[in-house]
């Protein structure tokens, strides 16, 4: 036992002390925080505000165009020719010209800077709605006010009812995000650190130190010491990343927020000017806050965290055992290809399947993939935020534990023979034979 601790200690310390580890640990969060912050920064910076001059020959669209953060509409009583003439002197970024209210009319948008697709479609739907209103009034004598009064606003809220009759509403968006995020982390962890196990075993084999060590400890102790030591390295790196990322992210957000205060105020003003009422704005802000709180109260956070840690380690141990066995069977990393295939396929497959599973988190595909140990670490992680029956979760966990025990047993057998085998081209048949060698 003491010897395993020594091995774990060596595997851990030699890796943690490496310059590459320190650099990765420091720059990883900067990179990650950057990935999170840059889009926000770019979004704030490049927020092109389209200021559209509306030239409406029909006079039917007064106050019909609703502005937003990015588009402002100004209704001008000018002829189109005048507007075009003074276009480059004015503040407007484009001119919208509506000449008639025919059913299949064409409106023109003259611009200095190409407007986005969403701007165009917004204008289209506003005009369509306007024409529809005009027709309604003309043909059925329904006023615009009457129409606004009966305008319905519908939201669909999905609520699950379990056998005990407990109702629970879930937010699909956040679940998707959490599930997928967890799956990506597990996938990355298994790959990054699993490969390190394999490399470590190959290193011991090619440097020929392995026989010296296994004259002091059992091959199994050496293998497990390596797997556990590298797991600890991974956990260290991940925790440091999370702490540092959070730190950098919050600092960055602070900086961005203060520097953009003025801009935000400005755009609020603009919105107010541009036909949007302040009270409405406040209401929507309040609503969003409420929604976010609601979202998180609906999601079983503790369950997710525990399951994440379990599948994180379980998946790593399962694949780590296989990769250790591969490392022991080959003479160099170049020879690993043929054995890597069957190991990486289920991993990549489950990653690809993750999106279909999210579409139908309780379907048979989702069920089976989250039960089978090779795919369960990723797929179960995707399913949990959507809610999984306890028996399914327990079954999947039990099978994963059995899976990695079995994999470790197999790996130990292959490892024991493989580490002392040099200069031999290893086939699957050979590996199978090793499984049945006596000690």
């Amino acid at each position, binding site marked *: 036992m003491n*010897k395993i601790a*020594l*091995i774990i200690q*060596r595997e851990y310390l*030699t890796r943690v002390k490496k310059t590459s580890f320190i650099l990765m640990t420091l720059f990883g969060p900067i990179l990650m925080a950057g990935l999170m912050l840059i889009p926000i920064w770019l979004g704030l910076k490049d927020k092109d505000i389209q200021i559209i001059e509306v030239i409406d020959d029909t006079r039917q669209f007064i106050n019909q165009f609703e502005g937003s953060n990015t588009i402002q509409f100004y209704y001008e009583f000018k002829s189109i020719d005048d507007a075009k003439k003074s276009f480059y002197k004015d503040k407007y970024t484009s001119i919208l010209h509506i000449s008639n209210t025919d059913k299949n009319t064409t409106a023109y948008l003259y611009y200095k800077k190409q407007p986005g697709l969403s701007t165009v479609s917004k204008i289209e739907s506003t005009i369509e709605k306007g024409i529809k209103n005009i027709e309604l009034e003309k043909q059925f004598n329904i006023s615009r006010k009457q129409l606004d009064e009966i305008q319905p606003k519908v939201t669909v809220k999905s609520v699950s009812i379990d056998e005990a009759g407990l109702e629970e509403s879930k937010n699909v968006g956040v679940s998707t995000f959490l599930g997928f995020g967890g799956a990506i982390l597990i996938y990355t962890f298994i790959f990054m650190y699993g490969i390190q196990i394999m490399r470590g075993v190959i*290193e*011991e084999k090619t*440097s*020929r*130190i392995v*026989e*010296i*060590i*296994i*004259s*002091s*400890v059992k*091959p199994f102790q050496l293998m497990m010491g390596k797997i556990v030591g590298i797991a600890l390295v991974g956990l260290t790196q991940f925790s440091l990343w999370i702490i540092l990322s959070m730190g950098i992210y919050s600092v960055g957000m602070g900086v961005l927020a203060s520097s953009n205060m003025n801009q935000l105020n400005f755009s609020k003003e603009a919105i107010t000017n541009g036909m949007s009422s302040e009270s409405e704005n406040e209401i929507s802000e309040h609503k969003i806050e409420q929604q976010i709180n609601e979202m998180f109260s609906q999601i079983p956070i503790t369950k997710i965290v525990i399951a994440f840690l379990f599948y994180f380690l379980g998946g790593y141990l399962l694949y780590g055992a296989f990769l250790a066995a591969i490392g022991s069977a080959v003479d160099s990393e170049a020879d690993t290809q043929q054995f890597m295939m069957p190991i990486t396929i289920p991993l990549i497959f489950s990653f690809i399947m993750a999106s279909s599973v999210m579409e139908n988190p309780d379907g048979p595909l989702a069920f089976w993939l989250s039960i089978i140990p090779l795919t369960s670490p990723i797929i179960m992680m995707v399913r949990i935020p959507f809610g999984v029956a306890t028996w399914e979760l327990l079954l999947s966990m039990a099978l994963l534990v059995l899976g990695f025990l079995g994999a470790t047993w197999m790996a130990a057998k292959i490892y024991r023979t493989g580490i*002392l085998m*040099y200069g031999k081209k290893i086939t699957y048949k050979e590996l199978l*034979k090793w499984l049945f*060698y*006596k*000690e």
Partner: protein
Amino acid sequence: MTFLFTLILFNYICSMEILYVKRVYKTYAEHKALHNVSIHIDKQRIFGLLGPNGAGKTTLIRIINQITGPDQGEVFFEGEKLAPKHISQIGYLPEERGLYKKMKVGEQALYLAQLKGMSKNEAKTKLNHWFDKFEITNWWDKKVEELSKGMAQKVQFITTVLHEPKLLILDEPFSGFDPINTNLIKKEILELRDKGSTIIFSTHNMESVEEICDDIALINKSRKILDGKVADIKNEYKTNIYEITFEGNLIAFTNALWTGFELLSTEKKDNRIVAKVKGVQKDTSLNKLLATVLNDINIIAVKEHIPTMNEIFIEKVNEVMPDDLPEEVN
């Protein structure tokens, strides 16, 4: 009475014998690695385990190191059945040996010593002693990849003997050593024996061990074909051929030989003659040869032609090796 006798005998065996390999068999898939091999190794001896590549030496060594187990047969360490607790009393320098390239020399030596069950402090003290002795103190913080092959071999040797094992197993210890380091290590091996260690010395290079081994076992094609004290074996396989260099009359010399010796060949060098003669009687000796010819010639030099281990090995291997010898019955 019988009990007492057994006890005394047992103690006697224990005190003399460090290792007893008893009728060991080991087969890998289709390949027979060891077939009915038995070996006794006495304490404080240097025991040569000889044989060509692939004979089964390394397999036997791995069984003694408990890296692998025998299919049949047993191994006893100081009279006890070999068990994991004996690991700390065995030092092993494998043929395929190396060190972690990226690790510092001192750190690595400490790690390997701790794996053998030493405490960190104890290991440090002893390492300092050995590093001083080999004059390599300034290597402590060097990475192994910065060392030359010979330098790394020195470090490996230190890590093998550091925990003062009762039994030291060296598999091809001199491969990769330059002559200076070879001598250094040879000296250390002899010193360790004199301090009480027993050394198993495995090699396919028969010449290199003749001078250093007390006992040997020859292994060929998974079987032990010869073992015993080096001196006894040489005596047993001596050819009774002598080479004598003299000045004088060849005819007088030939006549003097009489019936006791047979002249094999002669060679003339300037005014000297080099002759090879073979004793035909059982109790022949160099003294007898000298006594026979002393009065007739002027002797310049004389030596007995002693077969090398290599010659003995070849002779032994070329004897018809029946593949299915009746199994040894105890």
